[in-house]
């Protein structure tokens, strides 16, 4: 008994994922790879109140109160002001509302905290100018409190802050009615506030 085995081959041979002959279809693949990282961002912007001081995006952000004086005579360039409780004795204040917007993604926590402190205080006018702040619209000058100048114990700006939700805070300067023949008590000066957002 004999068996005859016929083996037939097709010519549709040479084919690869990216090309083929004697065929009408080809199906190459594209592998897309990615590494997802946590991200965090904190932005400052102009407050919603009419006349609020503009927050510019210079190094990293900046705000200018323009000309101020201890008697509250100067109309605020922007924002608002409080007259001194006792003119010539107690300080005046110039302040504005502004917005902080925390943004964070791919964090295990859904809330963040923001603190701030004066990392570089006023220099030549340190004896008459102070950075003050408030968490809500101040009703009077007493509602503005000094911002910490210590990185170790910064001022709390907010807790349980949600990503993408802007909060409104208030920042300003008080101007002491100091007169002196030996130290500088007028002119231009700047201070820097460092904000820190932490997502636990």
């Amino acid at each position, binding site marked *: 008994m004999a068996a005859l085995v016929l083996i037939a081959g097709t*010519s549709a*041979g*040479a*084919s690869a*994922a*990216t*090309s*083929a*002959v*004697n*065929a*009408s*279809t*080809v*199906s*190459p*693949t*594209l*592998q*897309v*790879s*990615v*590494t*997802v*990282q*946590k*991200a*965090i*961002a904190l932005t400052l912007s102009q407050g919603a109140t009419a006349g609020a001081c503009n927050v510019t995006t210079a190094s990293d952000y900046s705000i200018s109160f323009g000309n101020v004086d201890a008697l509250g005579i100067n109309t605020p360039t922007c924002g608002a002001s409080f007259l001194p409780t006792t003119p010539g004795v107690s300080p005046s204040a110039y302040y504005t509302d502004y917005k902080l917007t925390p*943004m*964070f*993604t*791919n*964090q*295990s*926590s*859904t809330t963040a905290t923001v603190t701030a402190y004066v990392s570089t205080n006023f220099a030549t006018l340190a004896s008459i100018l102070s950075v003050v702040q408030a968490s809500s619209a101040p009703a009077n000058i007493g509602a503005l409190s000094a911002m910490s100048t210590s990185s170790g114990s910064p001022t709390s700006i907010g807790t349980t802050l949600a*990503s*993408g939700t802007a909060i409104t805070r208030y920042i300003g300067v008080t101007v002491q009615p100091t007169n002196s023949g030996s130290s500088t008590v007028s002119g231009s000066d700047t201070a820097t506030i460092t904000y820190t957002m932490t*997502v636990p």
Partner: protein
Amino acid sequence: MRRLTLRGMLTCMVLAATPAFAQDITLTTNASGITIGGSQGAWSTGFGSVNGLGLGTPATGETILSGTGGKLYSSPYDIAITGSTGSIKAVVKAYVSTNFAHNAILQVYSCLASCGSAANHTAMSTNSGSPTNIVPSPGQHNSTVTARLAIFVSSQNGASAFTGADSATITLLVSDGNGPVVHTYTLTLNNPTTNVQTAVSLSVATAASGRTVSAGSDFGLSYGTVNGLGISPGVGLTATGVSGGQLYSTPYLLQPSFSSFSSTTGTLTGYVSTDFTHPSQLELRDSSNGSSYSAISKSSGSQTTFTSSAASASTVTRYLGLFVANTNGGGVFTGADSATVTYTLVVP
């Protein structure tokens, strides 16, 4: 006296005829070429299966070169010259005496020098009155000359496209250059028969100013490090805020090629054949213009259509977007992930 004169005349005729018929040639297989078969003066050879894109592995002894509008399948062959000494040299010319039936698709080419370049191959004459030089004048003494024989395979599609078997015959003329042809031989391209096949190819490539597409398995595109805020997108990427997160996008190229099809267009589709491990945070999206994106299908049965009129050798620019969610909370993912998009080119 009369007998002596006749003998002398015969002797002179023999002496005069001997040099004219001394030149001869034999075609033989070159060590690096396709097989030359057949018998003396009626040789045969062939290129077998070919295609206009030069895809696949060519048969032993064939080299594929890129020509304009197609590919050249080229092979060396040897011409052993005999009977050519002293003032006698052999000149060999050739022409296509029986052309391919589909000579708009297949053409016989020849090359004598620097044959690694398609540009040095020339179409063999189809005119017996002006044959192509193979061993040009003033000819060669006894030696083995290596020349190259090639066929050009057009990559055209459409009504004139052709697939299937075809053959041609080359006639070789041997002479001393200035004298008469002393031998007429043939080389038939039917062993094996030339068989034109369809070919199809699809590549994914880097677009200008786009993210690099690497030739991995099969192709790869890395978005590098991404985040839900779109901070510092990598080179070639644009991060745009969209609902629920960021869209990292890049242009890229789809390069379809096909030949010998009756249709001049194909359909390009694709789907996410292997999704990200974290599909709630990562999603692949497609756009034709870089501004309006939609999720790429994850179903092989209902794929995303990129174009239904893909022309061969015409690049299609698309935009591949990666959506990165800006979610937080327990179980949120950070780290590496990957997905695979399978593209399909179908030419009807």
